[in-house]
């Protein structure tokens, strides 16, 4: 009976760890947004993005705190949180979606694969369906994911007053740089 019990336990552990290897995780992902106008260039960086990628299904989830975006000008950072994205009301931004051509990525073979990611992005309490091109790079010890896409803050109900309209680009350039390791 004891042997049986041990066998069952070891089966379960082996089972979970085997299946578990399909998930890749990072808690220190990098997302930057960049706004370019003739008057002013604005950059904000977030080094604390959390994300999980499921290699089997291609599912991807992202979460980040708006207050973790760092600006060069601290006053700008304060205005960003207080007046634009209203971080106290909407602390998180999330993305939930999947790699639509996940079957073309061989997670057991190191290399760079071009992918398209589709899903729902929620910022400032507003959810939009988005699609972005990017790459998945399979490494020996993990997976890297990169993407560059455009985002219009007004799609997410973020109001930009006329006074500063000239200083903030209509389309922000979003850079995503994630380095996942096995979960």
């Amino acid at each position, binding site marked *: 009976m004891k042997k049986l019990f041990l066998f069952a336990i070891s*089966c379960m552990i082996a089972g979970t760890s085997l*299946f578990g290897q399909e998930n890749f995780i990072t808690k220190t992902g990098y997302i930057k947004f960049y706004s370019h106008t003739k008057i002013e260039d604005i950059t904000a960086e977030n080094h604390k993005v*959390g994300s999980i990628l499921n290699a089997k299904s291609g599912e991807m989830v992202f979460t980040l705190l708006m207050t973790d975006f760092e600006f060069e000008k*601290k006053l700008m950072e304060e205005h960003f949180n207080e007046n634009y994205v209203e971080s106290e009301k909407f602390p998180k931004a999330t993305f939930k979606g999947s790699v639509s051509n996940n079957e073309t990525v061989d997670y057991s073979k190191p290399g760079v694969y071009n992918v398209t990611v589709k899903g729902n992005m929620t910022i400032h309490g507003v959810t939009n369906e988005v699609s972005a091109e990017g790459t998945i790079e399979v490494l020996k010890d993990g997976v890297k994911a990169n993407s560059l896409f455009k985002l219009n803050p007004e799609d997410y109900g973020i109001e930009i007053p006329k006074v500063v309209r000239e200083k903030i680009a209509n389309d922000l350039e979003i850079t995503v740089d994630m380095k996942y390791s096995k979960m």
Partner: protein
Amino acid sequence: MTLTNWKPGSTRENWITKRTMKKIVFYLLILFISGISSNLLMAQDLEDLLNQEMGEEITYTSATFKATRILNGHSIERMQEGQLDFRIHHRFGRLNSGAYELWGLDQANIHLSLEYGLKDWIMVGVGRGTYEKTYDGFIKVSPLRQSSGARNMPVSVSLMSGMYLNSLKWDDETRDYIFAHRLEFVNQVLVARKFSNSLSIQLMPTHLHRNLVVSALDPNDLFAMGVGGRIKLSNRVSFNAEYYHVFNQQNQFVSTPLYSPLAIGFDVETGGHVFQFVFTNSLSMTEHGIIGNTTGNWLDGDIHFGFNISRVFAVKK
């Protein structure tokens, strides 16, 4: 195992297969169940899994006040690391001074200062004001920040310590003054809570020490309790008020009566600037003069209109 259980009379081969079959089925069943359970773990929503992995974070309250001053006195806010604030404070004469003085606009009192965030929790500043030709310096540290989430802290606390040097020529050159007679010191504990996005309240117990006072009957040490707050009228405009109750203000025999300072006004924020429009009964724009020497009486219309301009530069990237 099977050998020891073998009994004479039964067919050995038959017995083994039956028992072993049962066992194999049993083990397979366990394998199957454990497989399902691990699959169930897998199927757990990725989003929940991520949230669980990320844990709960500390959310610090920001922008309790728009500026490092409520109006006349300090708020709990600091300049953050590497940020330089150039402040111009200006007060006109009294509104009740009449048309000849254009209701005070002919008189100008100014205080200029440069203030810098050494770290996110410590700032220093130096300034010069018209009132008593004061040179001043202060240091402000913030040991506690209001937060929620993984750590719950109901209030933000800052400590402000300032030194003020009166550089006026002495009235009476025949007396033996020493340098120390020019100095006054202020220590404040600032405790604030941002109750909601629009309402913040601050309490500021204050101690003022003056090395030299007007008469022997005047106390060298003054104690005051300040209360201030702001109500946001929009994302960019807020209504502010600030009052210090001075407990042992003056000996009543001095010729000029002193009052507790009250200021009301508005913050208007435009990109890199914060403008503050002020109505107050004190002429001085630094703590020692506000608390120790406010000669205006609101009820008589001894009100100074004025403004503060704050321009912040990111010095260190």
